[in-house]
């Protein structure tokens, strides 16, 4: 009886969590549509949602191809950046003993205008290839991964370290048994930031010349041809691509680390 009530309230709870944002989105789109039609706003200023949707579906196959191209760049950059970030974090955690040193380092790194490196990388590597874009994405991904994983490796409870010492554990054992598992939730926090960021980086990198197959190139060329509805449709496709990257990370996190997001034991 009481369990049923609990289950019910959980169910209504879940739905009440989903419906408000959907309702707001629908209302927002409706208001947008009405505003554009009623005020006769020109598409170069603001295209109506209906125009964007129409363009989205007429261009669907091209859009798939573009999203796949940019998605591949983002994925490659994400994998490389993550691997490099992990290696750097492992090295840093060996030498930076104090956690608060990571924060200024992170702030400093965040100030580097990485996207601006694209033209330089385009010259260093073959501009007609995907390579410079993958490299830019990799560098962008590197920072959130490095910072978060380093934190996770260092932010271990003192009492847990004392416990490891009482068990006469070698630092390498402590790394394996305590620090790395402790860093896994931090790893996913970093990855949740890095994954959509990878899509944005891959996309923006396309604005600096090179192959014209990706989402970024399509947005730029549509806008240049005054096809604003199409440009916005590609923006929507970009958002969806970024969202997919994010949701995949969330799913993997839920599946692999059931203990995160719980009240941690003392």
């Amino acid at each position, binding site marked *: 009886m009481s369990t049923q009530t609990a289950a019910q309230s959980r169910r209504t709870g879940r739905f009440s969590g989903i419906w408000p944002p959907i309702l707001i989105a629908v209302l927002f789109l409706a208001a947008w549509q009405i505003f554009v039609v009623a005020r006769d706003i020109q598409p170069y200023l603001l295209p109506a949602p209906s125009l964007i949707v129409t363009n989205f579906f007429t261009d669907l196959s091209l859009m798939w191809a573009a999203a796949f191209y940019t998605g591949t760049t983002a994925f490659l950059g994400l994998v490389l950046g993550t691997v490099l970030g992990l290696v750097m974090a492992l090295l840093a955690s060996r030498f930076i003993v104090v956690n608060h040193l990571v924060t200024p380092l992170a702030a400093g790194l965040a100030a580097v205008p990485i996207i601006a490196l694209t033209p330089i990388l385009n010259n260093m590597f073959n501009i007609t290839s995907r390579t410079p874009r993958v490299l830019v994405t990799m560098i962008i991904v590197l920072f959130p991964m490095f910072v978060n994983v380093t934190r996770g490796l260092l932010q271990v409870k003192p009492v847990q370290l004392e416990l490891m010492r009482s068990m*006469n554990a070698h630092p390498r054992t402590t790394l394996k048994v305590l620090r790395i*598992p402790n860093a896994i939730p931090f790893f996913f926090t970093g990855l949740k930031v890095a994954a959509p960021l990878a899509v944005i980086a891959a996309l923006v990198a396309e604005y600096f010349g090179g192959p014209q197959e990706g989402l970024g190139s399509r947005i730029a060329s549509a806008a240049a041809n005054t096809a604003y509805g199409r440009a916005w449709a590609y923006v929507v496709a970009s958002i969806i691509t970024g969202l997919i990257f994010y949701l995949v990370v969330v799913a993997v996190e839920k599946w692999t*680390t059931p203990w995160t997001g719980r009240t941690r034991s*003392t």
Partner: protein
Amino acid sequence: MSSVQTSHQAVDVQGLWKIFNEGSNNEVTALSDINLSVKPGEFISLIGPSGCGKSTLLRVIGDLTGATRGEVFIAGETAPVAREKQLYGIAFQQAALFDWRTVRRNVELPLELQGLGKKERRERALELLELVQLSDFAEHRPWELSGGMQQRVAIARSLAVDPPLLLMDEPFGALDEMTRERMQNELLRICQETGKTIIFVTHSIPEAVYLSDRVIVMSPRPGRITHTVPIELGERNEDTRETDTFYAGVTAVREALRGRSASASPPRIEEL
């Protein structure tokens, strides 16, 4: 107990000093000239106000921090060697369980570090979980357990390698009064079943009296032992906490804690 047969004391602390930042302006004498012998199978409590060095003393015995001067022996071995040989298990106020491991695998941790095989590890862990009456929770995650249950897991873990000595740093400090009394009974039962020597840090007077064969009273600035109060309650049971002997013990420890006249030779409180 039968200290005659064993050539070594379970714990022997001789002329121990612990000074933080020695020689600098913010020098702090955490422990000054501590001498303490614990017989095998004895249960002793360290009690005193905050800053009296009771936790520090426990940590020096466990070689979690080094001594400035003096010596510590566990079963005849120096503290670092004793730690290497895993001659003690330790439990803290925080259960310090690893969230990513099941309850059983938390208990297995010390055995894993010793390189024991998977099957033996598992068997031993299940045995210990039975001892602390948590068999049904072996495959649960630590955060699914209550504070008292988590602390029982931590105790099971401290017993994993079957060390002769248990060091306990306010293990029940974060628990509510009811859970706390239940845990004290559990601990006494476990002691009886395993015959461990226990050094127990607490700042609860009734807890110290109820559990111990001997209560060591400490005083701060500098941290030192001021009194030793022997407790003879015999077999503990439900009524023990209401006996006159128990109250007399509580009073004796309380007075020892109040005693401001810290004479060079600590006055020995008469046997109760």
